[in-house]
């Protein structure tokens, strides 16, 4: 299709200017020809290239994007407006989102510092998590497809290679082949698996690596053999290329780039959690190393990769629900041992049936507990004291296989602090005492669990004190 001139009209839309003329599509800024139909936001029109020389994939991608964009909601995707008939002139009209693509950061002369990298990574992870919750995997994440708004949030673009778990995958075929952009594609996509949300986490890892070092972890392979390298190869550690990069950040990036999907972050929410809590990342040899993996290990993995196959994955939303982030609110005063014990039992039970679930232990202290002038009550000391208390509380729980972190938050509104924390960290489940946070003042403060239960964005488990304690207390002293 030839380029449209400004002022041209198509199905009631007037072309303003061409924003992008790529190999797959032309993108124009447009507006409604009839004035009163103002949608309240700027519009962009995408027209796939479909002349004789263009591949059939363009047409299928257009169909896929049309189907998926129509049903996606939320702030992390452009709003869908209209589509043209495939039999006449195919086009998609959607919200034009103001912002810079990630490519903009890559084109800057210097590399972003660690806090900026973490912010960008977190924005991507949140956007991707929102997509996965809607049962869609993007599968073509790359710097040109991630737009960052002025407020720092990310918007994902181009769903032409995406996969919706509730729709037939039009891009699938009996003889599976790699579909995606070679530099960012995940190993399982290389062998033809479509629909694993962890493929998107791999792509975020590639982009973070790229932003951090200026290099692509696996280059931009042109051949099938080159693509298969990522099935067994570890990229050079980012700190080898940029030694001042913090160990925790390398740990996070390399975990995204694990060749086996099961060893990556189980959901984008887990990734976002680590990027927003650098102090809680458990740094291993992976994060510390500054030299690449040796030939022997690579050779062994290469042999293994020859027969590598992947299990088809369940629904993305189901998959991320199975590895939730659990938040337990542990009261730090006016609380009985029985309540602390019951809370611990409830958390242990919840973790026991959810392998890989992450646990965040939180306590909310009053702002008056710390003081800037009194060194005994300095923020660091007070927080350390409460962190120790949380660790002691959690000690009896079997936390193997569960990443665990401890958090002290100062707030005068306990319920609001818990809810905000849950919202900010994509928490899937809150565990708290049914009548905690102030036993003496129960008439007044029992409203904390109720407020949390009403306002929380997720499931709330209210734990009651277990019965045996009452009975033990009532039992007559042994004669």
């Amino acid at each position, binding site marked *: 299709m030839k380029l449209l001139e400004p002022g041209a009209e198509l199905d009631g839309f007037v072309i303003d200017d061409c924003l992008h003329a790529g190999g797959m599509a032309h993108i124009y800024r447009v507006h409604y020809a009839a004035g009163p139909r103002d949608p309240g936001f700027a519009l962009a029109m995408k027209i796939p290239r479909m002349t004789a020389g263009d591949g059939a994939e363009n047409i299928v991608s257009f169909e896929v994007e049309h189907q998926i964009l129509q049903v996606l909601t939320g702030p992390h995707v452009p709003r869908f407006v209209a589509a043209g008939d495939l039999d006449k002139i195919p086009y998609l009209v959607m919200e034009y989102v103001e912002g810079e693509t990630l490519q903009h950061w890559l084109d800057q002369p210097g590399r972003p510092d660690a806090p900026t990298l973490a912010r960008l990574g977190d924005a991507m992870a949140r956007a991707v998590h929102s997509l996965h919750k809607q049962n869609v995997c993007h599968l073509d994440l790359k710097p040109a497809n991630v737009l960052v708004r002025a407020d720092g949030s990310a918007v994902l673009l181009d769903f032409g290679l995406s996969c919706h778990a509730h*729709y037939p995958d*039009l891009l*699938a075929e009996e003889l599976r082949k790699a579909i995606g952009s070679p530099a960012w594609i995940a190993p399982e996509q290389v062998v033809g698996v479509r629909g694993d949300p962890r493929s998107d986490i791999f792509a975020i890892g590639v982009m973070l690596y790229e932003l951090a070092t200026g290099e692509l972890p696996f280059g931009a392979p042109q051949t099938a053999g080159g693509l298969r390298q990522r099935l067994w190869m570890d990229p050079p550690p980012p700190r080898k290329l940029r030694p001042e990069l913090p160990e925790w950040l390398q740990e996070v990036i390399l975990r995204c780039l694990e060749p086996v999907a099961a060893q990556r972050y189980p959901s984008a929410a887990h990734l976002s959690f680590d990027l927003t809590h650098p102090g809680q990342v458990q740094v291993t040899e992976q994060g510390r190393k500054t030299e690449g993996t040796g030939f022997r290990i690579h050779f062994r993995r290469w042999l293994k990769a020859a027969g590598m196959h992947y299990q088809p994955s369940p629904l993305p939303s189901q998959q991320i629900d199975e590895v939730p982030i659990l938040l337990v609110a542990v009261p730090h005063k006016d609380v009985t041992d029985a309540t602390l014990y019951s809370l611990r039992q409830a958390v242990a039970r919840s973790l026991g049936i959810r392998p890989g679930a992450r646990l965040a232990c939180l306590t909310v202290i009053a702002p008056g507990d710390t003081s800037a002038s009194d060194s005994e009550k300095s923020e660091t000391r007070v927080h350390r004291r409460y962190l120790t208390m949380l660790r002691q509380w959690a000690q009896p729980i079997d936390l193997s296989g569960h990443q665990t972190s401890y958090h002290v938050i100062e707030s005068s509104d306990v319920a609001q602090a818990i809810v905000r924390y849950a919202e900010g960290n994509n928490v899937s489940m809150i565990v708290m005492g049914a009548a905690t946070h102030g036993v003496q003042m129960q008439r007044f403060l029992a409203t904390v669990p109720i407020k949390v239960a009403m306002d929380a964005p997720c499931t709330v488990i209210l734990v009651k004190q277990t019965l045996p304690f009452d009975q033990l207390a009532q039992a007559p002293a042994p004669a």
Partner: protein
Amino acid sequence: MKLALLSDIHANLQAFDACVAHARAVGAERFALLGDLVGYGADPAAVLAGVMQLAEKGAIVLKGNHDEMAVTPEGAGKTLGGSTADWTHAQLDPAQRAYLAALPLTHHEGATLLVHASAEDPARWRYVDDERSANASLDAAAALPDVRYVFGGHVHFQTLFYRGTGRGLMRFAPTAGVPIPMPRHRQWVATIGSVGQPRDGDPRAMYAMFDSAAAQLTFHRVAYDHATAAAAIRRAGLPEYFATRLEDGR
């Protein structure tokens, strides 16, 4: 137009009524009953009465293998499928038997072909249960002008077959209640499941709704009083197996 597709009712009055009510509630403008109206279940006469009422108001009704067996049970043989044919035959009056005997095997309208089993030699009642058999049905249907959609029953499972980027058909397991976009420029084969005898471990009745204007197919699952349907089978003295399988959805 919203066309409600119901198949394999199998004389299950409770499931039939529940699906018809559900379809009306979600805006069905027309009904198509894709055969096996009777057999296995305890209420063949009542179900047929309901079917004939729908037909008077424009419903499409096709013949299935069990309908044929109910007309001529002597040809049914001693199979599991044929074991209730004699009893069913006895429950129906001559007018009802004549109605069943006269039913067509297929219905072609616009881009849609409706058939009980496979469009490939419909009277042979072939199962469309994998990509290959779906392909054969589609190939036979494609001999008719403009056919894009082949909808059938017979297998008691809800499955959609579609063409991806490869040459052969691909199988897709639908999620109940989710409208699936099925644009006209592609070809589709769907088995819409069974109203009266689900066999996938979920006792809820199955049917599907095709919205031709929006080019969307929605597979539905409808909870119904399967305990009453099973009790009716026991009361009628039919084999216990047919009652328990309604309770288990197997």
